[in-house]
């Protein structure tokens, strides 16, 4: 009897706490926004001002936490398997859909799957650009591709790392043009730029804002970009699509929540991101780092994410495993 009533009381308490939880306004405590990269990267540069602006609308601190490791896999996996209560969110990069694909390629147990993550909003998107040293002989993509066809796998390029955001687009171009380039991976976009400046490789693929200063200082020349429309930073630059190579590639950043996050919380977050990207402070900050805001709300972002993921997965599969010597 006593036992039964205790169970009943317990059940009642549990039910009450459930009801409380459902009614509990969100957010009531600080939100953790995980950036799966070391400090200083593009995601953090976008994420910090975004978090600052979101705070104004959510009335709770949004704290950025760097959880770097394995090119983003550690931080992505951390949020993918987090409690879906809206207090642990992820700010990640386009590479989020490449990592599980690369895991498959090597028969590894994937650190996370894309089904574990719920897209909230895309914040920025920047197509990559192809840069050469200003002293390089090629004045156009056609010249570069023709040269590469004459001597396949001789022209080298630097990337931020294998299957990374700067490697995949170069391989996509090589596939579309029917030739091969020589890949020299570096550990990060910065070293990849340095290698091009020092003349240790012949071209590189980069984000527009990363090379804008070097282009202005006349140390680098742009040949084309991977986008679908004109670049704000370089309106004159042709896209590869215009030039007849059917490739598209964006370095985008977006916000994700664990898959099972309740709709009410998701809607609050969507609203907060929408308000934040319209906020003058945020726009100002993005202006300074020359990164275009390309906001997409959840429905469009979900569609874009699926299409982009498919594109990237196909590219990674085509690149396949990289054997050391061919």
């Amino acid at each position, binding site marked *: 009897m006593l036992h039964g009533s205790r169970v009943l009381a317990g059940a009642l308490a549990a039910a009450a706490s459930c009801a409380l939880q459902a009614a509990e306004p969100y957010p009531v405590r600080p939100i953790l926004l995980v950036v799966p990269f070391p*400090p200083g*990267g593009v995601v*953090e*540069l976008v994420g*910090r001002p975004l978090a600052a602006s979101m705070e104004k609308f959510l009335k709770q601190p949004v704290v950025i936490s760097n959880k770097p*490791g394995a090119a983003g896999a550690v931080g992505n996996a951390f949020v993918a398997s987090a409690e879906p209560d809206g207090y642990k969110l992820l700010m990640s990069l386009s590479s989020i859909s490449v990592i599980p694909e690369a895991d498959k*390629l090597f028969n590894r147990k994937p650190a996370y799957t894309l089904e574990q993550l719920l897209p909230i909003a895309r914040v920025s998107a920047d197509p990559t650009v192809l840069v050469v040293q200003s002293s390089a002989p090629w004045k156009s993509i056609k010249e570069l591709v023709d040269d590469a066809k004459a001597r396949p796998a001789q022209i080298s390029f630097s990337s931020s790392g294998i299957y990374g955001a700067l490697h995949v687009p170069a391989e996509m171009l090589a596939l579309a043009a029917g030739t091969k380039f020589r890949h020299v991976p*570096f550990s990060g976009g910065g070293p990849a730029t340095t290698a091009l*400046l020092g003349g240790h490789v012949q071209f590189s693929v980069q984000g527009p804002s990363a090379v804008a200063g070097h282009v202005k200082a006349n140390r680098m020349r742009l040949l084309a970009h991977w986008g679908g429309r004109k670049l704000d930073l370089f309106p004159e630059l042709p896209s590869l699509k215009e030039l007849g190579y059917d490739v598209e590639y964006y370095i985008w950043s977006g916000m994700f929540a664990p898959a099972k996050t309740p709709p009410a919380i998701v809607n609050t977050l969507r609203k907060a991101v929408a308000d934040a990207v319209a906020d003058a402070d945020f726009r100002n900050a993005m202006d*300074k780092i020359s990164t275009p805001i390309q906001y997409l709300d959840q429905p469009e972002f979900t569609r874009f994410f699926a299409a982009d993921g498919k594109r990237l997965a196909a590219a990674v599969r085509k690149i396949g495993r990289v054997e050391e010597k061919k």
Partner: protein
Amino acid sequence: MVEVAHNLLLGFQVALTPAVLGYAFLGCVIGTLVGMLPGVGPLTGISLLLPVTFGLNPTIALVMLAGVYYGAMYGGSTTSILMRIPGEAASVMTCVDGYELTRQGRAGAALAIAAIGSFSAGTISVIGLMLLAPPLAAIALKFGPPEYAALLVLGLLVLAFLSGGAMVKTLAMAVLGLLLGTIGIDAMSGFMRFSYGITELADGVGIVPVAVGLFGVSEVLLSARNGAGTRVQQPKLRELLPSRSELRDSAAPIARGTLLGFFIGIVPGSAHVISSFVSYALERRLARDPRRFGRGAIEGVAGPEAANNSAASGALVPLLALGVPSGALPAVMLAALLIHGVTPGPLLIQNNPEIFWGLIASMYVGNLVLLILNLPMIGLFINLLRIPFSYLYPLILVFCVLGVYAINQSAVDIWIMLVMGAAGYVLRKLDFETAPIVLGLILAPMLELSVRQALAMSAGDYAIFFTRPIAAGMLAIAATILLYALWSAFTRRALWRKTVGLEE
């Protein structure tokens, strides 16, 4: 020259305005504190402070962040000397002789020499930064993967001079470090190596968890075993200052460390970490009695401390002159600059002279602030040693765990630290030196990556190492050192045989 003086004057006008001075001071204080915590290095400090600077003007923000940067380089020596906990990888060598000096009651002197060395190195290297930035940066760009590989081969040779113990034991430890360095994702093919399904190991074994484990945790374990045998230090005031002979012995190592650190710091990549190791090895090699090293040689503190501070300024050369960050730390500084709408590079000096020269001048001021701040604090820090071990050591362990966790917010790092602590305890009981493990761990991934990048550049042709002048030159130096070492080992053995023969 007149122009430089004029520009510097402009810089000091910026640097000495009360607001800039105040923030420089604040940056230095925060940096010192951040540097003292194990694990929480300048990288964490700057990234945490970055959002705070959003509202400030770019000059002030940059001056404050730079203050954190070189302040942390100062602070890193304190825990190394007092407690044998390296705050960051560059402080590992300071632990060895610095802590020995503490055990001999010379903690104050070691701290003072570290501060003076850091100050001299900081100030002199800023002069280098000011005068040589653009031309040096251009040379630094010539350092591609083959040159980097050659530089690291030179770094490997340094291993042989690192420890005073038996050569076989040193090399065994170095190999252990190199093996640990092979764990993680293979940068050229994307394969995971020895990670056993632990995603956190994809980036390899962290240097700081290993260093803190091998040095700090093992020391706590060893002292606990010694129990009552270890006495509480009661330093007297006059023992706080370095003696005249200690100052004299430190002058040359500081000068050499400054030069060495500056030039290694300029090289793009993370080579600046090895500057303190190279400096230590150099001092040991040049010393009249190398056996003192590892037993409390003041030169073993002076050289590496100067080198690591000077490398910090050197690393700013490619950043400010070209907009090219030479490592993780300058990359965060670059991000900070961009956030404030400043694009570094040759145009920075033209377009924003007040920022460039303001920063340079504030670095002079900041270094002075740090010296003034740190010398009187030595007395305070020394008092930490008065805390009985039964209270102090648990606290040290807590700080080790907190600091190591803070780097990547990763519990795996804590386990690495604890395992390394246990390993360090056993190894030190068996008379193995642990510093070569750390250097091996630092060098292995860098060397492997650069060798394979170079081979990727040449499609597998090894000639790339010998046809490029800088790489070939450094490899020739390495070969000469190796031959010389072999030859002297040979002749010494002959000499030893002779003496033994005579005795018989």
